[in-house]
């Protein structure tokens, strides 16, 4: 798709700073251990490989199901098949959280229904606001 054309090769790794930050969170200075740069670079390669592995496995699974889009359950199955079953619970929790978030966002969009007023009532209020704004505008000295 279009965004694939824009991505150049150098973007196909993880951002170093983010990786470094996460490493530091895992191995805080208090642990007395530091992570060397070459180890970090290797780790980044491994991470990219991991993503590739998971997504190609998930892709296979989704294709077997004749699905065009890789969904969360495909990732879940891929993780299980590849021996990362431990991750599934957390991954699903995150996915669930994301879905809930979408829901609540949709809810925010349908404020009209939330207001508990009928459409006519809302329309009337809006007209009211327009009128008062117009009045204010006209009342204001030049």
């Amino acid at each position, binding site marked *: 798709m279009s965004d694939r054309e824009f991505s150049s090769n150098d973007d196909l790794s993880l951002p170093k700073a983010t990786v470094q930050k996460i490493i530091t969170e895992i191995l805080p200075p208090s642990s007395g251990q530091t*992570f060397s740069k070459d180890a970090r670079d290797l780790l980044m390669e491994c*991470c990219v490989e991991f993503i590739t592995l998971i997504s190609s496995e998930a892709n296979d699974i989704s294709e077997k199901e004749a699905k065009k889009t890789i969904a969360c359950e495909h990732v879940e199955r891929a993780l299980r098949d590849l021996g990362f079953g431990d991750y599934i619970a*957390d991954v*699903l929790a995150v996915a669930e959280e994301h879905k809930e*978030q979408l829901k609540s*966002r949709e809810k925010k969009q349908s404020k009209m229904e939330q207001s508990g007023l009928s459409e006519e009532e809302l329309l009337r209020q809006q007209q009211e606001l327009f009128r008062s704004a117009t009045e204010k505008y006209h009342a204001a000295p030049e």
Partner: protein
Amino acid sequence: MTEKDNSTYRPRSPDFSTFQSPISPSVNHPVYPFGNPLAHRASYDASPFFTPQYQQQFPSAPPGPLNRVPQQQFNIYPFADATHLHPDMARRSTRIAQAAEAAEAAPPAPSRYIDPVVSKEEEPARLPSPSPPPPPPAAVAAAPAPIAVPVEVKTKFPVARIKRIMQADEDVGKVAQVTPIAVSKALELFMISLVTKAAKEAKDRNSKRVTASHLKQAVAKDEVLDFLADIIAKVPDQPASRKHDDDGSDQNEQPKRKRGGRRPKDDSD
């Protein structure tokens, strides 16, 4: 499609939206008959009503003992906020127990309207002493967790980048919106496991510095990580594990390591 994806990611960044989601899946934010709901929504995050509402809502969230682990992982900030209420913030088990109690005590979703009363009475009861100044959020992460979660990582990967990496494989077609998010969580756990294992390798060799070869050793030990074989094959074998302190010969044996410096452990051994 992709544009839409990107645009919807944006609001994720404020932490408040993160915690809000698991709490009220089906219920509209109920308690505000006053004011214009539109205006109020707009400034939701900053709203003064926000905090009280969240406090009431939280205990009434249905945290089964099953999903409590993920919950606390992702709700770091809300918990940090709750510090005002819980001086013993650091002890997670206590806090969770309290939350569970409250969840039982407070009736679930349908009777939301009495929640405020209930929890307001409960709050002081749970607070024997006036709370000290809240510790910084970092304290939450640093607190020793009695539960099985070894490490919590607050930093998140950029989801767009994850998606791009996924789709770099040309076989990979469309990806659901939630998929890169799931993958990035998996990646996070994967990274934690790799780093932890590599650190252990280093520790076993009395090295304070985790090097690429430690990581290699860690990977080699785990058959689940076989898919990394090609990548770790590039790394020279750990000379330190066999003949590191014989003489200076290991300098020749690590052509990849351009650092030139010797690792501290060479001296310590």
